[in-house]
């Protein structure tokens, strides 16, 4: 097998790979479609019911938009904070690492939902009356998700930093680089590349975490879908519609996480320095 691969010209190998992944994509799409059809058959053909969509579509699309908005806020904040914390964690000064460790242990020890709820309640109380508003509570809730994810991202970045072998740092020093320079030109490029795969995973988690905001009535997809669900139940509408709603919601989240992980995969491929994984974790 090895010799065959060596004999195959690189260009051909690339197109082979592209063909395989295209086949894979087709498989996934087909499988997904099949699954949905199956689900609907089992649970009662309701996904395409026009009556349902008359009631639900506004909430559905607004919910998606709101969710995207929250994601746009949470992801960058979490990366920025997580990166700084991860960097702080590899500092030699305990005065820096201890508080950071406490922060990380805190967010790793309690459920995000719990912190979210209480942050949105407690947070506004810190500010003078005139700033307190529902909006503020929601924003604080979203920020809590960001800080929660940051704790995990800090660990990812820390692992990335520590995976860059000591020899690299020595070599950078040996050609006369100062600490910050070696960080910028040698350590960071490698650490960031190494962090990409687990980071992709974490991003998928953040996307799903936005559903938690429903607990504080944030008007994102999950929350609005819940409201419709309540309306249907109370109004005695067809309970099959419930399956349809949640299937639709599940599909939306699935597509979002799928797109994000694909995008990260493309990014990984683009910045891939051949042989970098040889040093990996």
């Amino acid at each position: 097998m090895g010799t065959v691969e060596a004999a195959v010209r690189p260009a051909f190998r690339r197109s082979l790979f592209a063909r395989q992944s295209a086949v894979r994509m087709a498989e996934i799409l087909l499988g997904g479609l099949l699954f949905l059809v199956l689900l609907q058959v089992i649970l009662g053909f309701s996904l395409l019911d026009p009556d349902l969509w008359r009631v639900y579509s506004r909430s559905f699309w607004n919910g998606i938009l709101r969710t995207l908005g929250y994601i746009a806020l949470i992801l960058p904040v979490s990366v920025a904070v997580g990166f700084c914390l991860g960097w702080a964690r590899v500092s030699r000064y305990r005065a820096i690492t201890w508080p950071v460790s406490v922060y990380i242990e805190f967010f790793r020890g309690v459920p995000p939902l719990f912190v979210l709820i209480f942050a949105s309640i407690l947070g506004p109380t810190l500010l003078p009356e005139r700033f307190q508003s529902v909006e503020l509570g929601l924003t604080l809730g979203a920020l809590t998700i960001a800080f929660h994810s940051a704790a995990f991202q800090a660990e990812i970045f820390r692992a990335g930093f520590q995976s860059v072998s000591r020899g690299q740092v020595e070599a950078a020093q040996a050609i006369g680089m100062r600490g910050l320079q070696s960080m910028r030109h040698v350590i960071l490029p490698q650490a960031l590349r190494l962090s990409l795969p687990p980071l992709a995973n974490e991003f998928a988690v953040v996307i799903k975490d936005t559903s938690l905001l429903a607990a504080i009535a944030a008007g994102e997809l999950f929350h609005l879908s819940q409201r419709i669900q309540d309306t249907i139940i109370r109004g005695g509408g067809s309970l099959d519609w419930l399956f349809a709603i949640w299937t639709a919601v599940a599909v939306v989240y699935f597509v979002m996480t799928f797109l994000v992980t694909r995008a990260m995969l493309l990014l990984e491929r683009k910045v891939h320095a051949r042989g970098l994984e040889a040093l990996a974790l």
Partner: protein
Amino acid sequence: MIRVEGIHKHFGALHVLRGINLEVSKGEVLVIIGPSGSGKSTLLRCINLLVEPDQGRVFIDGVHVNHPDIRPEWVRQQVGMVFQSFNLFTHLTSLENVMLGPVRVKGVSREATEERAKDLLARVGLSAKAGAYPAELSGGQQQRVAIARALAMDPKAILFDEPTSALDPEYIREVLDVMTALAREGMTMIVVTHEMGFASSVASRIVFLDAGTIIEEGRPEEVFETPKHERTRVFVSKILR
């Protein structure tokens, strides 16, 4: 040109270097031999200040360099280093590896550096691999790029820390050839190695280090064939088989 006086270094309870005095003149090739754990690598790293000596002074061209007022980065620009595990920057190509120092540390322009870097790679015989990443190179090739990288900084001297110890046997020759050529061109070199063939033919002086002290020093013929101390004799006989 490089002088160390009374160097002591402790790692915790371990007294690794016990009062080292050494002098290397310009153009000299000094080879340090000794059993593992004798402190050879540590001594080398004390010279370019990757390790800070607990006691003693290091002089480069008469300047006392392990002084709080001197920036270590400046010292490392004067004295380059080649590592046992090559330590090429894995995310950069060979050419970029060689260029990084001059461009980012010395501030030379990219075009000028690129020209020079290509010359250096040619000098070590790797022009064809300028665009290759370290993972695509053999050990011997990586080490030669590492030498080019050290040369790019125009150092006054280069320190070699067991440059061929991590290489497969078929690649040792090519690296030693580059080092020999360098010596012939008059580069001041301090080499820690087990390659006795290289030491005999290229070194101007051999130093035998054991358990943190210099046991013996002298010309290759003297140390290898007529050692003055028993420990030297024992060690040399083990190495020369």
